[in-house]
């Protein structure tokens, strides 16, 4: 338990959780105040997933990764567990709203987008570093919300975030990104950073 507490603190998990919960609350309140419908609109749901994933981004690297790597611990399972827990947090926060007056659903859309975006973020953390890893998920998701395409397979892959929940192509894309990110992050860990950037 002591190890877990220290680990969570070193990854700034409390503040990330607070940011995630805060974002959910803000989005939930916005919808509750300004809409009479119970089902939250799909763009709003996707944007909320994106926000939560971005909030969790900060926990993907510690203050000193080089030092961390020297520890006599098996990191891969721990890193994988970290990502899976992050998915559970994002999905859990949003699925909890299904019993309230503003439902962020459907559940499958939330899980698909959360898994895909987390995987994409993890891939970013491995390649360009955790602090920059939200670049691609943000740009890609915003574009796919504003200009959703459908019909052709390639355009469904390009805008997988905003496809309807039952779409197979989008599900496969999200699964590939999710699994790819999970494996890459578990095996390689966050990219090493220049010392000047060591403190987040």
């Amino acid at each position, binding site marked *: 338990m002591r190890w877990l507490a220290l680990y969570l603190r070193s990854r700034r998990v409390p*503040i*990330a959780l607070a*940011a995630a919960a805060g*974002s959910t609350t803000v989005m939930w309140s916005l919808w509750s105040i300004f809409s009479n419908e119970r089902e939250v609109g799909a*763009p709003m749901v996707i*944007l909320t997933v*994106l*926000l939560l994933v*971005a*909030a969790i*981004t*900060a926990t993907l690297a510690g203050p000193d990764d080089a030092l961390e790597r020297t520890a006599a611990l098996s990191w891969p399972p721990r890193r994988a567990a970290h990502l899976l827990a992050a998915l559970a947090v994002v999905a859990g926060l949003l699925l909890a709203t299904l019993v309230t007056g503003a439902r962020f659903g459907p559940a499958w859309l939330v899980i698909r987008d959360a898994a895909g975006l987390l995987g994409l973020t993890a891939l970013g953390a491995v390649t360009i570093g955790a*602090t920059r890893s*939200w*670049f691609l998920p*943000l*740009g890609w998701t*915003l*574009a796919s*919300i*504003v*200009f959703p395409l459908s019909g052709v397979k390639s355009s469904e892959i390009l805008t997988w975030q905003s496809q309807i929940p039952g779409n197979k192509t989008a599900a496969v894309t999200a699964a590939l990104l999710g699994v790819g990110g999970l494996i890459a992050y578990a095996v390689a860990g966050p990219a090493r950073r220049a010392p*000047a*950037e060591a*403190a*987040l």
Partner: protein
Amino acid sequence: MSRILGIELRRSAAAGAVLMLLLAGVILLYVAPQRWSPGWMSVVMIQREYLVLLWPLALAVGAWQSRREHRSNVAELFASTARPRAQRMMPTLGALAIAVTCAYLATVAAVVPWIIGTARYLPATAFVIAAVGALAMIAAAWLGLAFGRLLPHVVTAPALAVAGIGLLMVIPVAVRHREWLALIFSPMFGMGQYTDYQTVYGRVSAAQAIWLAALAGAGAVLLASGSWRTRVAALLPAILGASLAIMVIPRDDKFVATPVDPVAQEQVCAEGSPQVCVSRVHSGLLPEAAPVARQALALLAKLPDPPTTVHEDTTTYYPATSPPRQAEVVLMRITVDEHGHLADKAHILHEMVTTLGANTDGCRGTSSSVPVMRAAGYWLLGREPATDDPEEPPEVNAEAVKLWQGLRSLPEKEVAARVSTVRRAAMACEDLGGLLTGRAQ
């Protein structure tokens, strides 16, 4: 100062931001080239519409850049220097402004090779529209810098981008019927083109520029200020700018909902006869349109006193206007394909001849008119009537074929006279039923 600016350009997020914004902008433009291929005005307006994505990204760029000091743990060190904060922020503001402006303008430049051969009409308004777009990007980047400094956390930048896109999507709904308000506060509102003749009037651009400059100013003050008192003072330029913009903006539908450029609609004629003219905005397509138009005139020449001139059909639905009805003028509807060339020439010819070159816009056609018109048109084309509308009841075309067969059994001169009667009746919005039948005279 310029040396520091140079260093800042190299060491800040500027270069990365240019690359990212340019990439996003070019991808957006080239995903749907048919939206901007008609001309330069379309390019700059559609580019403004894509601010829906670029504007939030510029906010994120600013917020990301602003975290640098926090990330490097030098806030205290810098606070101990004698240089005032406002002065220290100038190179950063300058570097980001240069970066986002370059990215925005380079995106426009990236489409130049695609349409330079066909686009002709380049009014000063196009430059104003692009300049206001660049100003919107600067305002977003500076505002991002300010917020990034107030809340130096890794999630600030993505959250700001999400808030920005949310704002842009909500504004048009939130203003309800006061569209002029949306036009001020959302730099992308109303930029999707209903017609190729659409424009943004100067006073609207002026109001937008006032608001965006005020917003950029507020961002700069917020970034440079060290105390809460001056931070609150940053509201002042924003409020001033908003009120001034609200005073300047015209609220008439002509300027807000349906801004059409009359100069773009003016007819420009090709050399040679018979005379063929297209609107100024499509004047680059004149060499492609003229042969089709002359072919149509040649087919219509079978009629007694045939039409002699072709003009472009400059009908717009918002506002609902149409060129005047003239017996000697045939209207030609011009659509531009994704490469900027004249789309579907065969269809244009077909359309011009099967309407007998009559402008029937605004007429309420009766059901008996359709087969008559079709039979007459296909007689001119020398083909059996056909339809490409699968929803049309089969009797309509059967009736047209029957009339057409009746025409073929008559002497040519007689048919020409009857078709000419149909044309005159169509232009007068009369019922065409029975005009092709009856005994030969």
